[in-house]
């Protein structure tokens, strides 16, 4: 099978390009997505190819273009809305929570909201306390939404079309540190399943459960743990809402230990939810308490050494996993 060398960024761009070609109802809108090519260069070149009707720069108002995306979706279009980062999505929270997520219910089933919202998430780029949030766990709290976190090239390439085909509103969180990730994809790579978690590395001793930008760190930790004789399984959640309980529980039932790696703040986090589900459904399978590696509960520091200290790191994952397996944590 022929393959192409690509990056996470290019894979998303190719997915957008494919969607624009396949379906005339699809258009992309957001801040600086046109000539500028998006603040993370995801839509670079698309304006020349598809024109300003389909690659739309919007006025600087998240609430306006998310709300317009909802309206356009109900008006028969298939909009892809790009919010520059999750931090700015707070300005559209009412549109996302009170409107996109509820309109099917409030219309008695008359209106699905086939809207896809993409946004960058995560820290690690020294963008300080107001531009480094990982709030996907908040969105995963909301019934009516589907929340995706592509962590691989395959998912960057394949989740968008599946999201566009979904009749419900879908939020896609792209971790900023993943954009430059390079690798190969099959030349015919396309839509992927968006309902199931994936085992990215099989193992017997401990389940490392993670998603998005924390996947590379967790895989690194698993590799280093293997060198010391600990065989870690790595689960990539992929879908943060709904969660694929079956894959999580099957893994924990086999390894009897779980560490959840989640860049969100620890209290009330997605990691807390997964921990609760494991406790509810696999309590008697466990050989050790469920552990969490999350971000420090502080506004994200600007200084590099402080930011790195605040974020989940492979070293921390290794220390925590080792403690669970050897009982010396």
């Amino acid at each position, binding site marked *: 099978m022929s393959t192409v060398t690509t990056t996470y960024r290019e894979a998303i761009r190719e997915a957008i390009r494919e969607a624009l070609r396949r379906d005339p109802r699809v258009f992309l809108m957001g801040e600086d997505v046109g000539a500028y090519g998006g603040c993370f260069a995801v839509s670079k070149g698309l304006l020349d190819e598809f024109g300003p009707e389909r690659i739309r720069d919007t006025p600087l108002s998240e609430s*306006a*273009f998310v709300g317009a995306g909802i*309206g356009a979706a109900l008006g028969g279009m298939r909009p892809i809305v790009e919010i520059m980062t999750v931090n700015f999505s707070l300005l559209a929270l009412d549109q996302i929570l009170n409107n996109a997520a509820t309109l099917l219910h*409030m*219309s008695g089933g008359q209106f*699905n909201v086939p809207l896809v919202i993409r946004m960058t998430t995560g820290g690690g780029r020294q963008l300080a306390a107001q531009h480094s949030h990982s709030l996907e766990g908040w969105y995963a709290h909301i019934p009516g939404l589907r929340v995706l976190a592509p962590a691989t090239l395959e998912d960057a390439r394949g989740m968008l079309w599946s999201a566009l085909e979904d009749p419900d509103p879908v939020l896609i969180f792209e971790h900023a540190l993943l954009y430059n990730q390079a690798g190969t994809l099959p030349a015919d790579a396309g839509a992927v399943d968006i309902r199931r978690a994936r085992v990215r590395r099989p193992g017997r001793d401990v389940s490392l459960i993670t998603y998005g930008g924390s996947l590379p760190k967790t895989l690194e930790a698993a590799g280093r743990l293997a060198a010391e004789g600990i065989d870690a399984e790595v689960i990539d959640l992929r879908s943060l809402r709904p969660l694929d309980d079956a894959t999580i529980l099957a893994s924990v039932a086999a390894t009897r230990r779980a560490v959840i790696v989640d860049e969100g703040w620890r209290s009330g986090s997605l990691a807390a939810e997964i921990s609760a589900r494991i406790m509810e459904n696999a309590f008697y399978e466990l050989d050790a308490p469920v552990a969490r590696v999350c971000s420090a509960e502080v506004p994200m520091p600007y200084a590099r050494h402080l930011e790195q200290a605040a974020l989940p790191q492979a070293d921390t994952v290794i220390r925590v996993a080792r403690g669970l397996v050897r009982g010396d944590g």
Partner: protein
Amino acid sequence: MTVVARFEIHGVRYLDAAGHPCAELPPLGRDREHLVALYRAMVQARSFDAKAVVLQRTGRIGTYASALGQEAIGVCIADVLRAEDVLLPSYRETAAMLGRGVHMDELLLYWGGDERGMDFAGPREDFPICVPIATQLTHAAGVAAAFQYRGEARVALAVCGDGATSQGDFYAALNLAGAWRLPLVVVVNNNQWAISVPRSAQSGTETLAQKALAAGITGVQCDGNDVLALHETLAAAVARAREGGGATLVEALSYRLGDHTTADDASRYRDPDEVEARRQEEPVVRLRRYLHAQGWWDAGVEEALKADCAATVDAAVARYEATPPPAPTAMFDHLYARLPAALAAQRAAAAAGGGHG
């Protein structure tokens, strides 16, 4: 210093409170059949409204937002739109929704706490009632963008209240409509009260219509109790939008004769003398006086109309009350197009009689 831009806001009024012409009337003023139809629709809406309040008081529906005194706005909106246009209502658009073809029993279902009422038999593309304030205006901009994108000669029309003009979404939607020259009409039902906050405390602007100027769209004020003024203003705005001339903000001056909703008691914060004074300006009596003066209406026809409207409402109430309530599992029915497996247990718990342990 030089003047770099100059703006004006125009107001439209044809009939005074007594129903007497106060300007040269537009052709609609001579159209007996059309005016009688508009009058009938207003009386029908008021009749439904009064019954809905009674149903709430007797525990047969939940909270209801009366549109008493503001019927002309909705009736004229429905009259100037085409079937293929899209209405995005707030919660005080009973008259407009009825005019668009939504059934009374559907509205009663909704206000009775059953969202099946918002899955109307028609018009299928009109939006459900929007309870959040001003969020429907950005949706309307999106609907209008979809029409524009597909080259369709259709118009999106959204309605909000005076309080909504203080929201960010209000201005954000107008701004987008201006930047993209969208086929959009935003109607502000300025009924002078946002729950307990009077218009004077809502905004320092002289008019609400002038908020359009900052967005680069047309803004116009009209007497929302005067069917002739409303109809002309709205028809012009809709025609402009349909012909590619861009968006319009219409401020319709009205007065909320009732409470904000049945959950409110306006006598706690409103001077009864003010309400009585404004009652003299209300739109139904105003148009009736005009029709009387033309010799197009009399007490006999009025009585027959009232009886007819009451019968229509009573039949709708009977249909509403004969509708079985939804099963407890219904709350999961319209959460996703297909319920994710992870929520199946919660649905099963509801089916088994509640509890989510």
